[in-house]
């Protein structure tokens, strides 16, 4: 496929690896932020091909992983109600709540559907006027415009039988949390290319300046990641701390302003709990007052959170912050597997532990 196959060329990859080796003079620790990048790094064995001095740590960029257990439990409670059609992206269905997952609700007769696009919910709402349609609106900035468009169009059409369970999170506050931690070893970041396709590179300039850390906006194919690493290492070796754009074929400085305007109209910024990390101020989105009528938590009386304890053995919080790797966990591959995940980083295929389990065991 055009714009995919050429970025998997083995000869060019070898040349980038040679170039990375040539400029590396000392150890560096670099975090790739997005779960899609983690997946590519593990799938293509990139970490094993790099010089020993380059240490990759994996970031919190998997929205499925960081959706709090309390929110999964709310989704399960709503989807179990009669006359509800609960719609979700497929990867949320097998994430375990404190007692069961959405797939189990479906097996017990609940009308739980996985959809390709949030806009699919509009047709389901039109076709089922006697049912209430709830969409599980999770994701980062990449997914926010589509979810905003669903709510906007539902309002335009006057579809009163549709609401959204919102658990949106934002990347820059998570990077800030990681980099400002005294335990952090991260010296450079590969920022998430598709998040930046929406928000632009501009959001990261203050972070690079404040924390004196290079940030390279990077794509998802093997050559993208290798070029992003080269650019990041080059900055580190030269003592520079700038925002650079490896993924310029898709990302601009300003981002997609039409998408940003739609997000700003439908959502407002709020604090969110991240599974494995905890509360991060101003790190998420919830519906703006104008669209509060589409809030499933309000509609079904589930605004209050019932705190749920995570298994003590699980170290996913440390993995999400780049402080530990999956194989340092005593439960990895034993008590914790993709079929029976204990924590955030094993629950989704994009999670760091799930990627290691799939490609390294």
């Amino acid at each position, binding site marked *: 496929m055009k714009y995919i196959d050429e970025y998997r060329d083995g000869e060019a990859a070898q040349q980038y690896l040679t170039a990375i080796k040539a400029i590396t003079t000392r150890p560096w620790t670099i975090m790739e932020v997005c779960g899609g990048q983690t997946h590519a790094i593990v799938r293509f064995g990139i970490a094993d091909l790099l010089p020993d001095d380059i240490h990759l740590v994996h970031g919190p960029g998997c929205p499925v992983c960081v959706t709090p257990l309390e929110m999964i439990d709310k989704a399960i409670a709503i989807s179990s109600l009669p006359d509800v059609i609960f719609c979700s992206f497929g990867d949320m269905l097998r994430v375990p709540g404190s007692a069961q997952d959405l797939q189990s609700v479906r097996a017990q007769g609940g009308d739980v559907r996985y959809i390709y696009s949030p*806009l699919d919910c509009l047709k389901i709402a039109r076709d089922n006027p006697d049912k209430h349609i709830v969409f599980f609106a999770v994701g980062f900035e990449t997914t926010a415009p589509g979810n905003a468009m669903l709510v906007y*169009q539902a309002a335009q059409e006057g579809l009163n039988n549709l609401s959204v369970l919102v658990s949106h999170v934002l990347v820059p506050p998570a990077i800030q949390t990681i980099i400002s931690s005294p335990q952090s070893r991260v010296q450079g970041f590969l920022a998430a290319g598709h998040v930046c396709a929406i928000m632009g590179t501009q959001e990261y300039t203050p972070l690079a300046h404040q924390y004196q850390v290079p940030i390279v906006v990077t794509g998802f194919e093997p*050559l993208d990641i290798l070029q992003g690493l080269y650019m990041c290492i080059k900055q580190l070796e030269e003592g520079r701390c700038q925002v650079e754009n490896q993924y*310029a074929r*898709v990302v601009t400085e300003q981002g997609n302003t039409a998408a940003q305007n739609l997000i700003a109209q439908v959502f407002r910024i709020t604090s969110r709990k991240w599974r494995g990390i905890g509360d991060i101020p101003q790190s998420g989105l919830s519906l703006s007052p104008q669209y509060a009528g589409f809030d499933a938590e309000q509609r079904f009386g589930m605004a209050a959170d019932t705190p749920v304890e995570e298994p003590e053995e699980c170290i996913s919080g440390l993995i999400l912050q780049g402080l530990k790797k999956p194989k340092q966990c005593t439960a990895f591959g034993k008590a914790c597997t993709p079929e029976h995940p204990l924590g955030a980083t094993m629950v*989704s295929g994009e999670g760091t532990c799930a990627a290691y389990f799939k490609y390294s065991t």
Partner: protein
Amino acid sequence: MCLAIPGEILSTRGDTALERTGIIRFGSITKAANIALVPEATIGDYVLVHAGIAISIVQPEEAKQLFDFLDNINLDATKKTESSGDTES
């Protein structure tokens, strides 16, 4: 979850701005996607589609930069090798 795939716009339709839809070819698969958020996209453009919604137009000139960048690295390396060879001789 942030997976997005590049595809070519074959045709467009839609009465209102937010319902603008493109028929997009992804390799051997053809599928409809909302293209309202890339209003300047036209037939023949490649767009990046995430969850049924185009979020960006792929810029053909920028798509080459990864390889131009590599050529420049290789050129610099060759010059350095030649220059160190000159010094030795």
